[in-house]
């Protein structure tokens, strides 16, 4: 009987080794280990064997069963691997085909630049406030020390909406609304759209400004300079320099135009620089110390006179900064709603 088992076992191992498919493997398994398989059939006749012989034969049978199971597993793994290899050899994607990308959104460069500027000034204590774009002539002009028929009105060509109502020409009106609503200290940034009746390659009838105002006791002009230097270095590079030139804006005294050193010409000014046109400086800001007339309008006049209340203010055009930072060649691109422009940022 043992010979019989050995014959079946070795034949099964041989068959398993040569089985070429999972089906054939199953056939061999059934033919040997199945209910009616060769091994099972032999074991059915175990009853005819003597009690001493029975454990020996049983052990041999189990040993064969174990070997066959192991061979079965091994062959199955081999065949699985071979099948997978075939499958993998067949499965290929052309990795150079276009990716199925979702749409990528974007914020307008004006928005991004505004956010960046706000972030810089927020760090030294400025808060953001906004106000209406349709504004009274009083707040836009009179309260900013630009009375009717004053030559300074020439500086800002104005859109009129009706008697005493204009589209704001700057966000100075927001500062005045803020000062009238609360007491000092005031540290605000006023971003927003402003309007001037001017339209060409470098002027847009609508553009965006950020104005800053800091009013407190004993504020100095050097505070203005330090604030703007910090801003310039945060936006244009730690080695950026600023230059203040005397100028005139009716709502400040002293007044200044502020230039920042060209960020393209860091080490050496290039006469052909597309950014600064060879001057080494970029005009980006108007600034100055708050004119006392504004304190009177705001209701701060008494404290100006008795508590040394002073302040500084500055204003900058966001488009100008955005054009510099992003290298945008034409102002008009900002407002045309062209997706080829907008999707880039």
């Amino acid at each position, binding site marked *: 009987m043992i010979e019989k088992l050995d014959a079946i076992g070795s034949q099964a191992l041989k068959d398993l080794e040569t089985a070429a498919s999972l089906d054939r493997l199953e056939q061999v398994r059934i033919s040997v280990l199945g209910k009616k398989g060769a091994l099972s059939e032999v074991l059915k006749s175990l009853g005819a064997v003597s009690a001493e012989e029975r454990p020996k034969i049983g052990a041999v049978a189990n040993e064969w069963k174990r070997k066959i199971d192991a061979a079965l597993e091994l062959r199955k793994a081999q065949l699985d691997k071979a099948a997978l290899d075939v499958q993998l050899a067949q499965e290929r994607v052309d990795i150079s085909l276009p990716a199925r990308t979702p749409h990528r959104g974007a914020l307008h460069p004006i928005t991004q630049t505004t956010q960046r500027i706000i972030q810089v000034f927020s760090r030294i204590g400025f*808060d953001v406030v906004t106000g209406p774009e349709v504004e009274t*002539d009083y707040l836009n002009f009179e309260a900013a020390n630009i009375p009717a028929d004053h030559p300074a009105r020439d500086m800002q060509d104005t859109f009129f909406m009706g008697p005493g109502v204009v589209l704001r020409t700057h966000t100075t009106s927001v500062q005045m609304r803020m000062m009238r609503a609360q007491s000092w200290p005031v540290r605000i940034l006023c971003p927003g759209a402003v309007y001037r009746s001017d339209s060409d390659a470098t002027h847009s009838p609508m553009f965006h400004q950020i104005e800053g105002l800091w009013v407190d006791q004993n504020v100095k002009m050097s505070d203005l300079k330090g604030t703007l230097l910090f801003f310039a270095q945060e936006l244009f590079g730690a080695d950026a320099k600023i230059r203040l030139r005397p100028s005139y804006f009716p709502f400040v005294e002293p007044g200044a135009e502020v230039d920042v050193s060209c960020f393209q010409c860091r080490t050496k000014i290039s006469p052909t620089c597309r950014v600064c046109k060879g001057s080494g400086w970029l005009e980006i800001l108007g600034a100055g110390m708050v004119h006392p007339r504004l304190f009177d309008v705001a209701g701060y006049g008494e404290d100006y006179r008795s508590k040394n209340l002073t302040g500084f203010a500055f204003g900058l055009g966001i488009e100008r900064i955005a054009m510099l930072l992003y290298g945008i060649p034409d102002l008009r691109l900002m407002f045309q709603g062209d997706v080829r422009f907008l999707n880039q940022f």
Partner: protein
Amino acid sequence: MRISWNWLSEMVDLKGVVTPEKLAEILTSRGLEVEGIERQDQGFGKVITAQILERLPHPQADRLSICNVTLGTGEPLQIVCGAQNMKVGDKVALAQVGAALPNGMKIDTGKIRGVISNGMLCSEEELCLKDSAEGILILPESTPVGRPLAEVLGRNDAILVFKLTANRGDCMSHWGMAREIGAALGLKPKRAAIPLLDFKGKTPVTIQLEAGDLAPQFYGCYIEGVKIGPSPAWLVKRLEALGSRSINNVVDASNLLMLELGHPTHAYDADQIKGGRIRVRLAKPGERLKLLDAQTITLAGTELVISDGERAVGLAGVMGGEDSEVRPQTTRLFLECAEFNPVQVRRAAFKHQRRTDAAQRFEKGLDPSALGLVTSRLAQLIVELAGGKVISASAVQLGGQTRKNITVQPQYFQDFLGMQVSPEKAEQILLDLDCDVFKAEAQQGSAWTVTAPTYRLDLSIKEDLAEEIARTLGYDKISATIPKLTSAPQSIYTAASASRMALLNLTKETLKALGLAETIGFAFTSKAWLAKFGMASTATVINPLSEEHEALVPSLIPTLVKNALDCWRHHFGSEALPIRLFELRPTFHSAKPEICATGEMETGVEERWKLSFAISGPRWAGGLQNEQGELDFFDAKAILEKLLESLGARGVRFQPQSASRVAAGHPLFALKELLHPGKSIEILAGKDVAGYLGLLHPGKSRELKAQAALWIGEIDWDMLSKLSRPVYESKPFKSWSEFPPIGRDFALLVKDDVTADKITQVALKAGKPLAKVAKIFDVYRGSQVSEGMTSVAVRVIFYEETRSLQEAEAEAASTQILEAWKKELGVVLRS
């Protein structure tokens, strides 16, 4: 403002001290910005005077000649010339090889029709001396040969072009600029003595001031025996270089004086002044005045005029009249030098659209104490240029002049500017600027009283003085300090502006994350474009640049659609560009037909922030076309839903247009009508309609020639923001059940008019408390179900937070749900 370097140098000793370029730099750093320097010899380099020795015909061309010219020394040069007006012996202007002429022409050696030419004989046109010229420039016989042409023509000046700020009217003259330069360089400006006339006399023309403060001073001078004629060459040249045209010697004298001292003056033909008097008065309404420019204007009655005994003869401060102008036969003159109210002059100049050089000076204010000097100088100039004799002079002044005292502490400048300024230094600077500084001798450090010179009308408060000191020392000397924070910044919990700004940014960031690009459009568009969308602006600009900039928008949709139409014009191959745009900005609404300010702060125009978007094109940005699919309603709805989720908005609902109560007359009616009625939703915020979302109406789409289906949405962001979770509140965490849920799928047959939300609502209600989620996962209409019915697949998920659910419990709940569906919606299970 154009300033002559040579003229300035006569007043301040500049030569050898600074170059024009250096001066420009110094003045710019002092707040007087030089925009450019025009050198008169620009382009005249290598242009030399020469004499023609020989003129031969060109062998190849009848119209060309070969000229041999000499520069006085060296070999004669052969020049091919196309002009016909020269002859042997003529002195001409030779542009040598390497010259770059004022008109941009560059001169090279070259062959002209086979003959070598070593330069070019120039015409006045090529040298930009005249607008056009026949033939070449023939110089006077006396011209020396071999000299630079610029020198021979006296073109050795440099013109500094200033961009002056509105406060520095005192610098609108050479003398004014010389004063400023003198202070800057520590030099004393000088001028020839001006003998002062005696204004206590009586002129044959009586001066009457009838407009009070509007014209407080008038100086007159009577001259006889003048001979009107052309001005001398130096004067013509000077005026032309400074942008003024020569008229005759008397008018030129007045113009030169304005450029010299800054004051506009006027010379009348005294014989044309009727009634022997000059009156300064307000115009009569409807009065007519023929001006020097030969135009007749009709006066409103608010303008100040100069009149004689009969009629207006000049618009005060703006322009003289033709009737009394100086003409060739004039022999007697009456000179005017007056003070007019700046606002008055400015208004008149604007009203009659004549912003003359005179008006621009008057409106900025002029030194009121200089009138006698100016009149004397004018008389002196006229007598010099046109002969004649001053007969008499007189002056009328209403009231005296007061100079403003500015009180300031000596330490103020250092404290306020944040720069090193000792009281001594400050005082010196003020004195250099012609200020008077009065100090109480007794106490060291007590306040100063400073008086500004009469020509500095811009100095009236101590801050003005601080600017003078800062710009003299240089703004670069101001140190850089960071201001002290003396109170806490705004709280996002209490400052509405702070939380609002954060919510605005969150809205934009969310839309960006949803794949939309932000656009910023103008606040205005044309009325016609709005009308295409059934909309009208209630706030329009009175003086728009064009009709495109006239109507402030009530909705962002018209401009957004225009953006899409514009984008579609730019094809990539044969595909229309995908559109995914959003905009968030105010729209403008006025309840009143006429916009008018009510008080200092109220305009009556309401600004409502709206959020709008427009999408069109494939669902994916990249990938193969057949896998992309076109956007549909549910893509548009997803944007809105995700936004509401991100903002934590509560109480926003959608309903189909069929349920809308918005009718004609409602502010949002036009927007509603823009949409496909069956593929759009009305957005409700509480009880109010907050906006719409849907497909641009196919009819409108066809009318606008849209190239693809466009999904648009607009919501009132101000309403939305009120329903949104405040930005300072964090979104609360929600836990989930640790116990396994049981899901049940139902295939239902539903009548077409039963909406999906009804099915899920009924399920959740009937399946309470175990049914936690109900969602539609498939919808089918077609041949497999009968007409008018829809097959809907619903999955309901049951669970309990605290325990495992038994199958039987889910079974029982499912039964309840099925019964409710049947009872409430007539829904049956699909077999």
